[in-house]
């Protein structure tokens, strides 16, 4: 269980995380989603007591992270791939971490086997690929067999097999009743792994919802209707919360009514339909729509007008300040 209350972090004039409150519950994988620079890593560092919040609090399993007598048994964390001394072997890295809470050597061997690093465990971590670094990070997170796991972008650098492996591992860990909190900037990955979503943008909470709800909200867009009697249908559909627009002869875009309702209305009035298609926004589109205003680093739009360009310049000044 992770509970953040009005968590705020400012670096000088720049606010990385603003008044963020959320609860991560045990038993399900919770995705922590946001564009690059949204404040995900900062939030995770605050959960682990590495960064001190400017204001607000965050607790893990009911207490400040630093207040736990045996933190590795409470929380396992992968903060960045290769947070490892490049000159040290994977085995010695894990052994040194394990020693802080008296975790036995046999457990170090266990996690090395679990993440599939047996063959390279005695090699210097500096020569590891990004994917191997991720596996080593996951090994250190699992070392203390913790109740809560915090993983920052764990699939980065993994090959498809590795991604599948971590997806199943996370689900399995959650099904054992653990709290699993995973950040990503890839909506599609989260849709496959997570059950619950916490979405942030520019350090603010945008959504705290189940994945299913997020998907349905994303799809509750418009319905495309094509009919030879479009004008007649348009009159019949008109209502207080309904907007109907037409982009081409015989085609309607209806917002505010389900495709079921439109089909029924058409049938009752003996109107022929050629097409009745709810427009499914993809998850990525829904995510981008949600966070669109909250993206911090944006590639310059080649068609951008002068006003936009000035806006961007302001943004850059903020970032470097």
């Amino acid at each position: 269980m992770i509970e953040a209350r009005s968590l705020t972090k400012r670096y000088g004039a720049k606010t990385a995380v603003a008044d963020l409150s959320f609860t991560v519950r045990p038993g399900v994988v919770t995705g922590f989603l946001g564009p690059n620079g949204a404040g995900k890593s900062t939030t995770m560092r605050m959960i682990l007591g590495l960064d001190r919040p400017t204001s607000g609090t965050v607790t893990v399993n009911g207490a400040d992270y630093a207040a736990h007598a045996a933190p590795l048994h409470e929380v396992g964390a992968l903060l960045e791939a290769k947070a490892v001394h490049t000159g040290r072997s994977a085995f010695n890295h894990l052994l040194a971490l394990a020693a802080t809470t008296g975790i036995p050597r046999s457990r170090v061997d266990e996690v090395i086997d679990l993440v599939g690093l047996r063959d390279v465990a005695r090699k210097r971590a500096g020569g590891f690929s990004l994917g191997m670094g991720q596996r080593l990070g996951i090994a250190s997170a699992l070392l203390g067999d913790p109740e809560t796991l915090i993983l920052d972008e764990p699939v980065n650098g993994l090959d498809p097999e590795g991604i599948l492996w971590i997806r199943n591992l996370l689900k399995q860990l959650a099904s054992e009743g653990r709290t699993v909190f995973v950040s990503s900037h890839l909506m599609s990955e989260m849709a496959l792994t997570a059950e619950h979503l916490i979405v942030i943008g520019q350090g603010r909470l945008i959504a705290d919802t189940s994945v299913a709800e997020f998907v349905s909200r994303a799809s509750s867009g418009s319905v495309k209707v094509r009919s030879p009697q479009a004008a007649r249908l348009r009159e019949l559909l008109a209502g207080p919360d309904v907007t109907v627009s037409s982009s081409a002869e015989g085609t309607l875009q209806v917002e505010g009514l389900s495709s079921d309702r439109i089909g029924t209305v058409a049938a009752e009035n003996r109107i022929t339909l050629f097409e009745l298609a709810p427009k499914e926004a993809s998850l990525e589109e829904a995510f981008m729509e949600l966070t669109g205003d909250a993206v911090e680093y944006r590639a310059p739009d080649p068609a951008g007008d002068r006003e936009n360009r000035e806006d961007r310049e302001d943004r850059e000044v903020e970032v470097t300040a």
Partner: protein
Amino acid sequence: MTAVAEPTGASGATRRPRSGKVTQTRVLNSEWIKFRSLRSSYWSLLVGCTAMTALGLLFSFVITEKWDTMVPGRRATFGAIAVPLRGYYLCQLAVGVLGVMVVTGEYSTGMIRASLSAVPKRLPVLWAKATVFAAAVWLTTTATAFVCFFGGQAFFSTKHIEATLTTPGAVRIIFGTGLYLTVVGLLGVGLGTIIRTTAGAIAALFATLLVLPVLGEVLNFTSWGDKVNPYLPSNAGQALLVEHTEASGQMRPWPGFVLFVAYAVATMAVAAYLLKKRDA
């Protein structure tokens, strides 16, 4: 009776009762594993101690060779104890760099986040690093000091100018060499924690140890020289290694060394405060 297998979870662990608290002893063990599992630890100490021995023996050899033709003024300043140990001056470079790297190596690689999330109270990490490092440096450099001392006397004995362990000052200077080098290294650990980048911390350390005394020489042209120079960190610390203490113009050996230790303690206090307070 059938044995019931413990269920094994996704983390690969048999769920066992957890009693593993973080203690200073365990953190000490962890830091010892870290120290001994890096090649740079061995290389730095090996290079430092080899250079110290080579330089000390070279000085001893040259002086022995030139002894018969040496003018009396030169002979009067000769110290059979201090000369073979002069190589400490080189060794302090290696030890200082290693002291800095013990900390900054973790910052440059990101390891520090793993270390501090394993030990969120943070200060046990600093104390453990300092202790493990100090013990390793003290043991190796004190042993090297003995090797240098006896090696030098082997040359000097051919001219009957050798010292023994019972010569006044011999034990002080031999052990003093190991102590001085250990404190130099601890200054490095402290500055590494404060500055957090290897280059910056090494620059600060050697500016303090090597550059300050040279700048201080300017003061010798004013009345300020005697009031400032003896109390500069390295001058104070090296007072412990002076053989002819009467005319040295430095502090008395042990008060000088105590002042040097005080500088290191103050540095470590600032380091501890900043480590606790800053974001990792």
